[in-house]
């Protein structure tokens, strides 16, 4: 593929650059897949002219190997456009059709060539644009996966809020499965909160964690150790009796960590450590409880 040199008469196309561009844009707007709701006319014109001029630049090199260095600008341009279209909500086929719809407009200037040269050039451009469409579609897929991944990340972060309970006391109520990825997020947000708030005590509440196996335990131990390095002591609350027993059977020891049945219990211990305590304002009704 690399050995094939381009036969497209680039100067001929370049001479009709404006016409080609205009009819391509018109073609896109006419098409059933046009999405004026997603992209403005000016953005569409800008992207189209970027692709067309970069395409001619690539053809100037004479190389037809779209994965080679001569087409690097083109790949970068398609990447940028595909990714922005992923974010704007274009479908994969709408994104690919953007490139494919360039075929007819760009064939137009070739009318001036004699039939055999014309056929050759059309064939070549046809193949080339197909390959560029493929590149676009691959980038689109990657982009979509990245977006999904990012959304998952965001959801993870949303589901692991660090709460400031009191001056110097943080709580981290964990809910759901604590896998490695989630632990990473949890740990980072806890450490950040420790730094931001200058807290010295963090209560990790696992009431909402259904299963504590050896991996979850290891993650908890790592989180406790990391918090300690940042100058905060951790307590673990919400260990239900059946989970406490199971952990013991597994042979797990949580080193130097205060464990409490409930978040409230842990909070009282934390206050006590900070030299504060809760006092009833009305001793009579407090005693009556």
């Amino acid at each position: 593929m690399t050995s094939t040199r381009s036969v497209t008469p680039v100067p001929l196309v370049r001479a009709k650059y404006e016409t080609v561009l205009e009819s391509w844009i018109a073609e896109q707007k006419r098409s059933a897949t046009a999405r004026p709701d997603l992209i403005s006319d000016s953005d569409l014109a800008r992207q189209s002219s970027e692709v067309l001029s970069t395409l001619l630049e690539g053809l100037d090199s004479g190389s037809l190997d779209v994965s080679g260095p001569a087409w690097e600008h083109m790949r970068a341009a398609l990447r940028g456009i595909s990714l922005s279209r992923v974010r704007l909500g274009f479908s994969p086929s709408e994104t690919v059709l953007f490139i494919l719809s360039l075929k007819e407009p760009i064939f137009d200037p070739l009318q001036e060539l004699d039939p055999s040269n014309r056929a050759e050039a059309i064939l070549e451009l046809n193949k080339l644009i197909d390959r560029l469409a493929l590149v676009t579609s691959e980038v689109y897929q990657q982009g979509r996966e990245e977006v999904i991944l990012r959304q998952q990340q965001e959801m993870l972060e949303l589901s692991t809020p660090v709460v400031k309970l009191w001056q110097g006391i943080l709580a981290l109520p964990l809910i759901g499965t604590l896998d490695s990825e989630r632990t990473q997020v949890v740990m980072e947000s806890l450490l950040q909160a420790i730094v931001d708030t200058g807290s010295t005590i963090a209560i990790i509440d696992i009431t909402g964690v259904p299963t504590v196996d050896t991996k979850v335990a290891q993650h908890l131990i790592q989180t406790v150790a990391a918090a300690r390095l940042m100058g905060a002591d951790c307590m673990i609350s919400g260990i239900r009796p059946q989970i406490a027993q199971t952990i013991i059977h597994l042979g797990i020891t949580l080193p130097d960590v205060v464990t409490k049945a409930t978040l409230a219990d842990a909070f009282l211990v934390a206050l006590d450590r900070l030299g504060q305590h809760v006092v009833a304002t009305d001793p009579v009704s407090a005693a009556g409880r």
Partner: protein
Amino acid sequence: MAASERVTVALRTQEDVVSLRHRVREQAVVLRFSLLDQTKIVTAASELARNAVIYGGGGEAIIETSLNNGRDGLTLTVIDHGPGIPNVEDAMRAGFSTGGGLGLGLSGTRRLVDEFELRSEVGQGTSVRIVRWK
């Protein structure tokens, strides 16, 4: 009354480990296991399934429940066709891990169940069968 059920769960990813835990929990509830016994068998399932995914390159789990007048119980068999365990004695020792874990999965699982049977052949794979009686 005698009834038995058999459920197979494929184990390829961490998500599969989570769904196995759910299935085992369901069956343990059907058997009217106590909360403690449910937790034990679910945790044991989690350990074996995670080993099959991480070390065994994936596999499958078979949950069998038997409801007899004599004996109700849950049997779980986790099979993989991975590299196998070269030294089972080492692997069963608390604290031994080739994967940077706590190394408590196998030894701990044995303590969580009533029956524990591990078979492994290098180059063939590993199969662990555990039973928790009601």
